[in-house]
């Protein structure tokens, strides 16, 4: 996290650096291969956005349509509704979901007994390994119209309505599902970085009379700030990916107006309705916006004196 990068001119020649880092480079190889195969090569498929594409005719057999797909996309009211939903969900998740693992990590860190801490950690990691089908089914069993909670309230004379089928609650509902499922898992990185905060800082803060809250505020949080900023930037690049399976599974209950997001729009118009060209255009635009967000967030981080994800 050194703020002053080494002067570029004095770097050793490529060959020397290669020999020095070859083990690390070798270790990177599978990851690089993954990205080449599954991320970079498929990028070429984006030409579909400029075609009236039919899979059985292929790239060469489908007619070129220039920017028609983009123009048509802009005219679709349901596309804009999907964009608005995506942005709303992204904003809600950023405010409610992003800080949740930090808070939980601080809480876990404050536990004294290692045994209690370890067992709680294990428990909170668990939901991450459940598939969305299971998570949604569990929420359905409890909160759905025929669910336990609803039944309990009705038996006691309280009409709650169906939480799972209320479009106005949908965005909060899916955010709370995300929080339930992934907060525990999200603590891993924060716990690791909390552990790297030097203990003597806590000691001297305590000597100066700082209570637990002040120690968190003045020692822990500043200590893990670079990690928070880095994860926030990475999250921003991904911010338009607000959940796919999770939303598809619950879309019928609340209708497309409340639940369609860019990803589901692409799926329904592309894979289901066969309009591959226009939905690829939608996907491409999402990618470009995400890319722009990463660049600007990184710039912003530099402005605040952080190193961000790269310089």
């Amino acid at each position, binding site marked *: 996290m050194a703020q002053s990068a080494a002067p570029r001119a004095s770097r050793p020649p490529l060959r020397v650096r290669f020999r020095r880092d070859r083990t690390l480079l070798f270790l990177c190889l599978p990851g690089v291969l993954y990205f080449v195969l599954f991320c970079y090569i498929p990028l070429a498929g984006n030409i579909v956005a400029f075609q*009236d594409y*039919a*899979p*059985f*005719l292929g790239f060469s*057999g*489908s*007619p070129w349509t220039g920017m028609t797909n983009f123009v048509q996309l802009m005219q679709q009211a349901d596309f804009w509704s999907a964009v608005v939903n995506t942005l709303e969900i992204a904003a809600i998740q950023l405010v409610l979901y992003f800080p949740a693992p930090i808070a939980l990590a601080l809480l876990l860190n404050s536990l004294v007994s290692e045994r209690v801490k370890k067992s709680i950690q294990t428990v909170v990691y668990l939901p991450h390994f459940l598939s969305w089908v299971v998570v949604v089914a569990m929420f*359905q069993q409890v909160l*759905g*119209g*025929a669910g336990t909670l*609803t*039944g309990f309230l*009705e*038996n006691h004379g309280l009409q709650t309505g*169906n939480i*799972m*089928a209320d*479009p106005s609650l949908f965005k909060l509902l899916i955010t709370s599902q995300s929080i339930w499922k992934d907060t525990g898992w999200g603590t891993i990185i924060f716990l690791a970085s909390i552990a790297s905060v030097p203990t003597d800082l806590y000691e001297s803060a305590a000597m100066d009379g700082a209570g637990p809250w002040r120690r968190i505020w003045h020692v822990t949080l500043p200590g893990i700030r670079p990690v928070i900023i880095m994860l926030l930037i990475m999250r921003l690049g991904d911010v338009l990916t607000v959940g796919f399976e999770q939303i*598809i*599974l*619950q879309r*019928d*209950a*609340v*209708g*497309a*107006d*409340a639940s369609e997001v860019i990803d589901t729009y692409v799926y329904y118009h592309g*894979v*289901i*309705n*066969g309009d*591959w060209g226009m939905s690829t255009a939608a996907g491409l635009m999402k990618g470009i916006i995400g890319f722009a967000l990463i660049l600007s967030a990184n710039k912003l981080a530099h402005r605040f004196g952080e190193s961000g994800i790269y310089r």
Partner: protein
Amino acid sequence: MSTLNRRGFLGVAAAGTLSAAGLASLTACGSGAATSGGAAKSAKVKLPDFVAAKTAAPDIAGVSGGPDPVYLRYPANPVKATSGAPGDGKPISVLTETWVQPAPSGSSNQYMTELNKRLGSKLDLTVTQDVGDGYLGKFNSIIAGGQIPDLVWFPPNQGLQKVPALLQAKFHDLTPYLSGSAVRKYPNLANLPTYAWKTSVVDGRIWGVTVAQSHFGQTYIVNSDFWKKVGGTTFSSADDFFNKAKELVDQRTKKYPLEPAYINAVHLFSEWWGAPNSWADKGGKLTHMFESDEYFAALEFAVKCFKANLFWPDATLANANPKVAGGQIGAYVESMPKAISTADNLSWPADAMVPFAAESGSKPNFHLNYGSIGFTAISNGVDKARIPTLLKVMDYLAAPMGTEENLFLTYGIEGRDYKRTSSGDLTITAKGQAEAVTSFSPIQNFTQAPPYVYAPGAPARAKRVNEVQKQLHAMAIENPVNGLYSDTNTNKGATLTQNMYDLLNDIVAGRKPLSAWKGGVKTWRSQGGDQMRSEYEKALAKS
């Protein structure tokens, strides 16, 4: 065992537009690779000859275009309808769908082992279930992936796109093998009814083997016990239905009269008011059901039912059948009244609800469907020389009621999957329920015998189906554009219908006001509805 169920299926039969000439009329699309005007060519193609098979006579004869033939017990001495194994030893891959739970896999499934032996080729089935995006999602992914199975089932009403161009690019033209007298080489295929073959015709060519089905489509299937308290399921009016159903709602014990399939519900309610079967023909002028007052009245009624909690509260319920069988839901929509006679529904008091007048003065009706659930095409990845082999395999699978082949295909292995009663009739064993019923569903979905009614070991059920079919037939109306073709319906029909159904779901669930329907109809008309109308009217004038 024809349990073509629920919403995925003829949820869209409601759309009848698609049911009929449905696929057949799916002509050219905007891919630039296809041409328009296929409709004109399709009307001219020579359909396969019909040669009736010689099998046991039914106990109650069928009526052409009406009630299916009924067998009260399985014919005593099933004849053999094929000779030798039709396969060539090489596996045959198939894309199809199932309407019951998945079949057991591997060698524990002796039904499949036996079937593969009889066919002389291993059937390699890719089976999709009717959940989520169901068959359409799977179909489109497989086509996009380019690894097209040897045999692919084309349903007429699940919204497949660019079908004519797809058939042209990736499938064999089977006209020379099936048209006219050519089909006689495959006697069981020649035994399939002529009306059903119309769905196999696209752009003037025959692209596959038709999957024939009963004319009697969507019906409310009820659990009689559920309705006992209010005196059964005959009603004097929509209000009578509403009041009785409301009485049966019990949120404490989770009992609800209707499954939450709103599109199907509105379709069946609309029959109480006498809505058109997709289109109504008044002296050559067509009106679509979406535009009709009767359909709107049904929609309004569905909104009322929703508000009164008549529907099961979770709209995402994937399969209502077990809940109806268990008495938690009172009624659900099956794609045919025949469902009450199928092996999987014999263990609970299933019955069918017959449409009744919604108000004094309304003329209730029943919407007949086209009598086919599409066709099965052969991929052009298959060597041309192998086409006759695959047709022979399908010939085996189409063996009619009363043949040895059909007995095995439908009920499995004697002694294991079914047993003979002392009177010589069949009863299905638990093994048969788990193995034969589940294995047969995806097979019959891509090729099956001409429709008939038979309830193993329960002749009363078979008789009841006949009674219901007769009642329904007396009030039945056909879709006037059945057998006619419209290029616009092909290009846009599926999407336009889907938009209307999305709107319908939003309205019934209270997410949009009832008044939004009018605007939806306007959009439907301007985006292609009017065009379809004028194309069908022209075709109607010529016919």
